[in-house]
C-alpha cells in the first residue's frame, strides 16, 4: 500500500537528458521505478540509456507510453512551463524537484492548478517514494528505505532521509515518504499528505518533520486535532537558528512568535502528537510509539 503511487504508476522524466535529470532517472529506474519515458524538447526520438524513449512534448509521451506521473528536473526559468505542459497533457500527478522557481510564478501556477484535477508535489522537494511498490519518484537515496507501515512527511529533503535512515536502522519500514518542499507556496500541503496517510490502510504511524518559519505546522496541527486518527510523531527543527535570519531556501524566515519552534511544537503537542525531543531521536521515538501500538 502507501500513498500517491503504486505498481500501476507510469513515470516520465521531464529534463531527462540534463545532468540531474539523467542521473536521477537512472537511479529511479535502478530502484525499480516504472520509468516509461522522458521529455526534452528538441530531443524527441532519442533513446535514454538505449532503452527509455525520449519525446519532444509531454503530450506525445503520454500518448505513446500512457504515463500518469511526471517527475520534473528542469531549471527554474523553464520549470513552470514544464509543469503546465504536463497538466495540460492530462498527467494527474506531477513531482517537481526544481529549486529556485520565482515565488510569483508559483502563485500563478497554484491558481491554475487549483482549476484542474492535477496534483503537484513540490517544487523544491525531494519527491516521494513507496518502497513496498518499488516506486521511487525523486532524489532520495533508495537504499536507505525499507518497505513497511510508517509514513514520513517533511518540508525538507535531506532531513527526510535522516528520518528514514533512523527508522530503517531500527528495522522500521516505511509505507510512503513524501517531501512537500520548502518553498512558501507548494502544490501539496502537510494537510493534503496527512489526509492521504489517514485514509491509507498500509500506514500505522506517521513521522512528521517541520521547520521554523510560516504557519504550515500549525495548519497541520489543526487538522491532526480535528480529523487525524492515527498516532503521529513530530519534530520541528530550527531551535538553534537565530531570530531574524533567513536560513537558506527553507522558507525558514522567523516572522513572529508563531514561526518559532516552541509555538509549532506546542501546537502539535496540543493536537495529540508525540514530540520527538531532538533530531537524533526520530527513530527511537517512532519505535516507542509502535511498541505501544502492539
Amino acid at each position, binding site marked *: 500500500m502507501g500513498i500517491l503511487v503504486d505498481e500501476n504508476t507510469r513515470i516520465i522524466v521531464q529534463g531527462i537528458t540534463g545532468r540531474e535529470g539523467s542521473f536521477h532517472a537512472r537511479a529511479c529506474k535502478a530502484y525499480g521505478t516504472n520509468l516509461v519515458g522522458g521529455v526534452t524538447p528538441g530531443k524527441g526520438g532519442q533513446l535514454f540509456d538505449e532503452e527509455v524513449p525520449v519525446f519532444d512534448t509531454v503530450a506525445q509521451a503520454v500518448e505513446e507510453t500512457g504515463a500518469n506521473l511526471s517527475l520534473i528536473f528542469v531549471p527554474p526559468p523553464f520549470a513552470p512551463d514544464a509543469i503546465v505542459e504536463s497538466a495540460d497533457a492530462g498527467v494527474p500527478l506531477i513531482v517537481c524537484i526544481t529549486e529556485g522557481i520565482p515565488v510569483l510564478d508559483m502563485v500563478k501556477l497554484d491558481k491554475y492548478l487549483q482549476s484542474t484535477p492535477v496534483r503537484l508535489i513540490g517544487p523544491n522537494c525531494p519527491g516521494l517514494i513507496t518502497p513496498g511498490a518499488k516506486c521511487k519518484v525523486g532524489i532520495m*537515496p533508495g537504499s536507505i528505505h525499507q518497505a513497511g507501515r510508517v509514513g514520513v512527511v517533511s*518540508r*525538507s529533503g535531506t532531513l527526510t532521509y535522516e528520518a528514514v535512515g533512523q527508522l530503517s536502522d531500527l528495522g522500521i519500514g516505511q509505507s510512503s515518504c513524501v517531501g512537500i518542499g520548502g518553498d512558501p507556496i507548494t502544490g501539496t500541503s502537510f494537510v493534503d499528505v496527512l489526509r492521504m496517510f489517514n485514509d491509507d490502510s498500509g500506514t500505522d504511524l506517521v513521522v512528521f518533520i517541520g521547520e521554523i518559519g510560516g504557519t504550515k505546522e500549525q495548519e497541520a496541527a489543526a487538522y491532526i486535532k480535528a480529523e487525524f486518527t492515527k498516532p503521529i510523531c513530530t519534530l520541528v527543527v530550527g531551535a538553534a537558528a*537565530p531570530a531574524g535570519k533567513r536560513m537558506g531556501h527553507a522558507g525558514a524566515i522567523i516572522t*513572529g512568535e508563531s514561526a518559532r519552534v516552541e509555538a509549532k511544537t506546542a501546537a502539535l503537542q496540543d493536537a495529540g502528537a508525540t514530540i520527538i525531543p531532538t533530531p537524533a531521536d526520530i527513530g527511537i521515538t517512532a519505535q516507542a510509539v509502535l511498541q505501544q501500538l502492539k
Partner: protein
Amino acid sequence: MKIHEYQAKEIFARYGVKIPRGKVVRTPQEASRATEELGGQSVLKSQVHAGGRGNAGGVKVVRSPKEAEDAAQQMLGKNLITRQTDAKGVPVNELLVEGLADIAQETYLAITIDSSHRGPVILASAQGGMDIEEVAAANPDDIHTEPVDSTLGLMPFQSRRLAAKLGFSPELARPAAQAIHALYRLFVENDCSLVEINPLIATGDGEIVALDAKITVEDDSLFRHADLYELRDVSQEDKLEAQAADLDISYVSLEGDVGCLVNGAGLAMATLDAAKNAGASAANFLDVGGGATDEKVASAVEIILSDPKVKQVLVNIFGGILRCDIAARGVILAYKNKNSSLPLVVRMLGTNVDEGKAILRDSGLNVTFADTIAEAAQAISAAR
C-alpha cells in the same frame, strides 16, 4: 536581495509614488550643498541595509548647511550598529539628504508574499512611524491584512478599504489608492519579496508621500531582473555571506566555533539543533545545496575555513541530489587549498556513501567518522 532606501525611492518615483525631494551624497561637502539646495534644513539618512537606523544615530535632522557638513562628517565612513546588525555593524558610505516633510499623518504600508494566503498580501496600519513588530505584538488588530488575487490584481474596492484602514480621510482616499496601486504593480513587476513604507505620510497639503522606502527583491527572481541585480551593494553584506551568495550557497554566520557543512536547509537546522543539544555551538549555518559540484563544495568549505572563529569542522551530508563522493572531494580540495589541519568530523549517508568515505579515509586529513547525527554531535562536543 536588499537595496538602499534611495534606490527604492527612485523606483517608487518611476511608478508615480511621491517621495520627498532629496539627493544622495558621499562627502560632507555634498551634504552641505544638498542641504543648501533644500533651503538650509534637511534630514541626513544613513544608507545601510539594516533597520533600526533612527535609534542607532543613523538619521539626523540638521538646521543649516554647516550643521549638515559636520553631521555628515560624523556619519560617513563609519560603521553603524543597529539592533538588526551584528556587533561590527554596517558601513555608511552614502547619505540620503532630504527636505523636512510636513507630516500630518503617519501610516504603515507593506506588501509581501504570505504562504497561508498563497499569494501577495498588503499590510496596512494607521500606526505608522513606529516599530511595526511592536504594534503587531501589542495590538494585532491595528494591522489590516488584504490578500490580493493574482488573477485579478488589486481591485479598487480593496484600495478604498486599505485607505480607510490607514486612517486616511475620504479626500485622501483617492491619492492613497493610487499610491497603493502603483506599489502593488511595482511589487509584481519587480518580483519583490517585500515592499515596505514606514511611514507613508499625508502632508499638510494633502499629498501622500513615502517618507521611507524598503524593497527586497526575491533572490530566485534575480535571473530576470539584471537591472535590479546591479543595485546590489556587497559592502552591506557579511563578507563570507556575500561570497557564499555569489556561489549560490546558503550561509549565515553565527556565534559558535564549529564550522558546519550540510546539504539541505532542514538537515542544516537539525545539525545546529543537535550540536546545541550536545553542548557545542555552530559557527555558521551552511546549506551547500542540491546540485553542488566538488568545486562548489570546496568553495563552501573554504568559506568555513576562512572564519577565524572556527575551531573544528562538522560535515553532515545525506547524499541525494548531492553525491557523497563529490562532497568528499570538495572537502579535501578545500583543506588542501587552505592548507588547513583543523579537526574534521564527518557524517555521511546516502548516495555513493562508500566512495565518499573511502576518498576521505585515503586523504590523510584528520577525520573522525560518525554514523549518526547523535554520534557526530558527541564527537564535536568531545573535541572541544
